[in-house]
């Protein structure tokens, strides 16, 4: 295919050259004929002037030496033929001069010959005309010669090009194609069974083939290593998961049973204390009754602590559901509950509208409950309080939820301890609490893939930011 295109290009180039050359050659022939006409004309002047046709004819007869000239003739000023020359007896010569109009000379091609007529001048004055006719044999033989040479050149170069192309194909094109094919096969099938043949005459191609094969070896080895690593990892993950599950289970059952086991004695203490108060209350003095009250208060506190612990444990165990949850509604409901239990205080509650999240409704309720109750609790020392639950934009443009109060706040230096279990930044005398609430909130948000952090100033309030 390429060979054909090259041949065509070569043919067109040859044709262009030949055409140009022949055109130029035609001009040369015409110019030569013109020169001959001029010389013959000037040599015929005297003959015309002195009415000597023989002299003119012998001048023209010299054209026998020019084999391409077919005929020639001299015409006197009135255009009548004066003398003529014919190469062959039968060649016709025009009897009167063709008019050249206002020009000095005119030439034209007809019947396969070039004809030329020129005015004869002598000492600046027109004398007559000279006609000369030449065949185009020189041109034709040149054309034939060129065609022959072009054909030879064309065939020769095509033969040479074919031979070169064949040699090149074997040495270069085939190995490269094989390499490309192998690369394509590897990419398609995503495994590396094929290898490239690195025999062949060219060193560079063999090196390339070797490099390719090496690369495939390396790829195969890495694939194997990757698979082995992955299997190993999966094994470890399974092990870890099993260990983790076992540990969790232990922990859960531990906390559960501990909580329950702890409750029993508590119930005893509380119950018997109450019984004592009721049955023997009148036998005790005020101080003794005070002691009992304190026993009962303490047991109640412990009960709350155990409940909270149980809650915390449950949070870890419970299955999580994921569904759209209307946090605004939950917040309002929680606020209403708190107000019901502690309605005396003047607290302004601002709940944002339309705040939603994706998560477990029960667990999220626990979150709102803890956060709002905390806010309520830590503003209790102030005469008025403002608690706000809303949504805001953080620097990255992501929406963040917050619960803000203007209560006691905390020292931000201890913010790290805030979410640890049993960590309290305030003494029990100031604010009652078990230190488990925020840990629970933290655990729940963690399970949802969210997070929580807080900002505060002492006595200026605290803001808890969280993302579900």
């Amino acid at each position: 295919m390429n060979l054909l295109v090259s041949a065509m290009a070569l043919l067109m180039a040859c044709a262009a050259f030949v055409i140009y050359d022949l055109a130029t050659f035609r001009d040369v022939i015409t110019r030569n004929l013109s020169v001959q006409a001029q010389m013959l004309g000037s040599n015929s002047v005297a003959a015309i002037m002195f009415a000597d046709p023989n002299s003119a004819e012998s001048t023209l007869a010299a054209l026998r030496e020019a084999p391409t000239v077919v005929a020639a003739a001299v015409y006197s000023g009135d255009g009548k033929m004066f003398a003529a020359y014919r190469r062959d007896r039968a060649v016709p010569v025009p009897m009167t001069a063709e008019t050249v109009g206002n020009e000095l000379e005119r030439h034209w091609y007809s019947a396969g010959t070039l004809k030329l007529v020129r005015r004869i001048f002598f000492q600046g004055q027109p004398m007559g005309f000279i006609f000369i006719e030449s065949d185009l044999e020189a041109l034709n033989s040149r054309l034939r010669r060129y065609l022959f040479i072009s054909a030879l050149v064309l065939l020769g170069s095509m033969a040479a090009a074919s031979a070169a192309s064949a040699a090149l194909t074997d040495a270069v094109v085939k190995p490269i194609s094989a390499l490309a094919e192998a690369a394509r096969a590897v990419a398609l099938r995503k495994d590396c069974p094929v290898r490239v043949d690195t025999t062949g005459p060219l060193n560079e191609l063999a090196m390339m083939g070797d490099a390719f094969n090496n690369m495939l070896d390396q790829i195969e080895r890495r694939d194997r290593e990757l698979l082995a690593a992955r299997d190993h990892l999966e094994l470890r993950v399974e092990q870890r998961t099993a260990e983790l599950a076992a540990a969790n289970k232990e922990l859960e059952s531990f906390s559960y049973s501990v909580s329950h086991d702890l409750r029993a004695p508590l119930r005893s203490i509380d119950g018997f204390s109450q019984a004592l108060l009721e049955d023997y209350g009148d036998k005790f003095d005020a101080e003794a009754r005070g002691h009992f009250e304190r026993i009962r208060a303490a047991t109640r506190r412990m009960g709350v602590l155990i409940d909270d612990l149980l809650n915390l444990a449950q949070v870890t165990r419970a299955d999580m559901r994921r569904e759209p949850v209307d946090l605004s509604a939950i917040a309002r409901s929680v606020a209403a509950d708190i107000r019901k239990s502690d309605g005396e205080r003047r607290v302004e509650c601002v709940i944002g509208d339309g705040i939603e999240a994706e998560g477990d409704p029960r667990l999220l309720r626990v979150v709102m409950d803890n956060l709002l109750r905390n806010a309520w609790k830590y503003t209790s020392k102030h005469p008025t309080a403002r608690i706000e639950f809303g949504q805001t934009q953080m620097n990255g443009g992501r929406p963040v939820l917050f619960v803000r109060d203007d209560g006691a706040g905390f020292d931000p230096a201890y913010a790290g301890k805030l979410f640890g279990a049993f960590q309290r930044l305030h003494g029990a005398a100031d604010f009652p609490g078990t230190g488990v609430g925020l840990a629970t909130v933290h655990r729940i948000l963690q399970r949802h893939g969210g997070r929580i952090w807080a900002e505060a100033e002492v006595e200026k309030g605290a803001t808890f930011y969280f993302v579900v």
Partner: protein
Amino acid sequence: MRRAFISAVATLALVASAAAQVGRPSEYQVKAVYLFNFSRFVGWPQQVSTDSAFAICVLGRDPFGAALDAALAGESVGGKSVVARRVSQAEEAAGCRIVYISTSEEGRLKEILAVFDRASMLTVSDIPRFSQRGGMIQFVLQGDRVRFEVNLTSAAGAGLRLSADLLKVATAVRRVAQAGS
């Protein structure tokens, strides 16, 4: 000027036109034209060119008549107008460039040529054997055609250069020194 064109044509055109009238141009009509044509093929030496006109003279009995004046009408050579003069004595021909010596002067040819010696004049004549007797151009008749012979030596002796084209159409070219002296 295209007058020479007409004069060249006259030779042959007269054949056609005259055929409708009298027949052919007369012998002396042709010779008159030739007399002028000779001037186009002859080179004169430098010193002769100071003349104001180019004179063609007839010495002796004039055989041309009006034909000569007709042939020369309107012609010019080298910017000078051509005139015809008739003289009866050789001495009167001084200043002529071309001199036609009539057959009537055949008896005094030698003296005439002696007068014209080195005068840089082109001598033309019908006198028999003129070219062998020291003349430069001699008219001859071949059949009904007017031809001429040329004596190169005589011409060279007068300092005249005859063009090779002229020699080509001459029937004979002689290189003969003046017979006698």
